[in-house]
């Protein structure tokens, strides 16, 4: 995005940016800074704040819930490559103009569209031991699967549903569009060479949309670290036990349930570091693409 000439546009750009910048400073920059300060205090969320230095951080590193949330987040992250690969695969299939692909694409987008809050509540009903999915499973295997009770299953269910399933629809549209941008000639050359679907997929399709894939992965990282809360809150409330507890949920539980806003801010700072890393990666990716 290089601009010609040495002239600038004067103050006009700053005026155009003013609304955005004012909002950002007030609603994001200032809160993040205040959070950092709050993490060194003992505070109810209202009323006076008492400086206690690094106590919150000490407490956090000794808190089993903290380490469990990191572990859980790690598990969710593992689903990102699975989700990305599966989405790519389905998109590539659809690309072959199979009958009805437009309808499929539309229907698969619906879970995405409805949002985490609605889907969270829907799945909390759907995945119950006496729910409809388990009724089908019982019909086949005779025993229900404890999606929401078993700690291992619970966290993996969320990983599968949120990372793979709820982003599938969006990913398909996104990848289909990116694949459309691949030069036809390259694609056709591969077919003439006799390559089958798999060979084309792995050697031509995926590498050609590398940037789209990278951005999809980053998008998923953001969702896992910074957007999962509504879903977990409506589905499992971080349970059973702490098996679906995350950093975001910890901030919520500590800050808003137990009125330990200072302690919650310490957790926030850890989350902040992760987000900052993701953000930097995203920016680097963009700069590479533009180069």
């Amino acid at each position, binding site marked *: 995005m290089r601009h010609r000439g040495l002239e600038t546009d004067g103050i006009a750009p700053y005026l155009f940016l003013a609304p955005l910048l004012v909002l950002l400073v007030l609603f994001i920059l200032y809160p993040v800074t205040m959070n950092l300060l709050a993490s060194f205090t003992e505070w*109810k*969320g*209202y*009323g006076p704040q008492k400086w206690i230095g690094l106590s919150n951080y000490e407490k956090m590193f000794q808190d089993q819930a903290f380490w469990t949330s990191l572990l859980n987040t790690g598990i969710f992250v593992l689903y990102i490559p699975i989700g990305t690969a599966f989405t790519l695969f389905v998109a590539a299939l659809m690309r072959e103009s199979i009958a009805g692909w437009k309808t499929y694409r539309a229907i698969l987008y619906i879970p995405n569209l409805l949002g985490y809050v609605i889907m969270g509540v829907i799945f*909390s*009903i759907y*995945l*119950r*031991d*006496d729910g409809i999915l388990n009724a089908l499973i019982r019909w086949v295997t005779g025993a*229900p699967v*404890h*999606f*929401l*009770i*078993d*700690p291992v299953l619970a966290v993996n269910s969320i990983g599968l549903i949120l990372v793979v399933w709820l982003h599938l629809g969006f990913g398909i549209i996104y990848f289909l569009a990116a694949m459309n941008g691949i030069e036809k000639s390259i694609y056709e050359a591969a077919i003439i060479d006799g390559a089958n679907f798999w060979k084309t997929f792995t050697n031509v399709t995926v590498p050609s949309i590398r940037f789209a894939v990278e951005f999809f992965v980053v998008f998923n990282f953001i969702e896992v670290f910074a957007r999962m809360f509504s879903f977990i809150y409506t589905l499992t409330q*971080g*349970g*059973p*036990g*702490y*098996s679906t507890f995350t950093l975001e949920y910890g901030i919520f*539980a500590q800050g*808003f*349930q*137990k*009125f*330990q806003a200072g302690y919650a801010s310490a957790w926030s700072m850890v989350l902040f570091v992760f987000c900052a890393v993701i953000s930097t990666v995203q920016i680097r990716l963009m700069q590479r693409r533009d180069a």
Partner: protein
Amino acid sequence: MKKVILGLGFVFLCTAGSLAAQTLTVWDFKYGEVTGAQVPMKQIDALFMKANPGVKINHVSQPLDPQYYQIIQSAATANSGPDVAMFHPGAREYGFDDILVDLGPHIKDVKGQFTDASLEMVSIGGKLGAPVKLLPMTMQGFGIYYNKEYFKKAGLDPEKAPKNAKDFLAACEKLKAAGIVPITSGQTYTVNFFLRTAVANAYGPTVPGLADGTQKFDTPAFRQSVQFLKDLIDKGYVEKDGFSRPYFMDGIDKFAAGGGAMFVGLLSDVGNWKIFSDKLGAKNVGYFPAVNFPGGKYQDQQVAQGAGIGYGVMKWTKNEKLAAAYVKFATTGEGAKIYASATGALSPNTAAGGDASAYPVLKVIQGYLKSGIAKDYPPLFYNGYEDDSNRLCDQLFVTGTMTIDQFLTEYQKLVTKK
């Protein structure tokens, strides 16, 4: 002449002021129960508005779990919000003492109607005689209901509640053999409530010692009950399906529809004697307060919270007198009667009573309330204690990722944690 006009003007302004519509905003976490509490609350509001023309009640439903106290906290930060709000007496309310009005001067005429146990819980620091911050609307308790018809079917005496742990286990075995689900469950609340009854029997009048350190959780009596509950679950006597129910209400409904023989329920509000009697037949519902363990110090203790929920007046209200009047209206006299009879709540107001003649099980409950009450332990602790406790219970009872020793250690730690 001027003086007369000024005088008249002054009088006019005063009357105009009092004739102008006043709005009283009430925040409530039970108002959202559209088929439950909302019905009598609407009636109470209508009556109050009738008795106080020109007053409008703006009754707002707030979500309880867990945003309610967060929303109250937000209101405290902004120093504005409702005139009246509902609270859980006990520790949760103590945290908000500084934003609640001292109701003392307003309730001189009704204070005597309330039981000491309830007043204690709504006074600062839980001390009788300290300033009263809420008026209690219900008293709460927990116990085990059973379906008499199912007992009969399994070959058990329907009029005799299991006397002790051994009988209880035998009853479960018989029920299972007869193809009846022994214990219907709902989310983690079954464990939660069962432990409360167990603590009552394990510690009796010494329950408050758990909070000040004179009593510990790792005692043989409590350990026995924890082991017992775990065995019940492992043996399949507790309906495992119930743990993944997203809502406790579904468990209640299941038992009320004949889905199981026993259910750990409440005394007031929901999942109580009235609902089960109405659905299963008033003669069909049995009750006992806790499982008795051999060699246990205390038997048949009824765990009770002197006050289950109550209303308070917020300090930033501009209509303190009116707000206090509303609080009194809802918790005494006609208001209390309406709420109690509609929801089956037990009122700590001695002037409002449940109709024991139509509900035999209520008589049983009242008997236990008279013979021996133990304090409920979670209200003794910090905000969010119940959530932490539930998560630990999940790990031991539901997911099986903890041993009993680990559980007891961690559970004890919660007392000093914050």
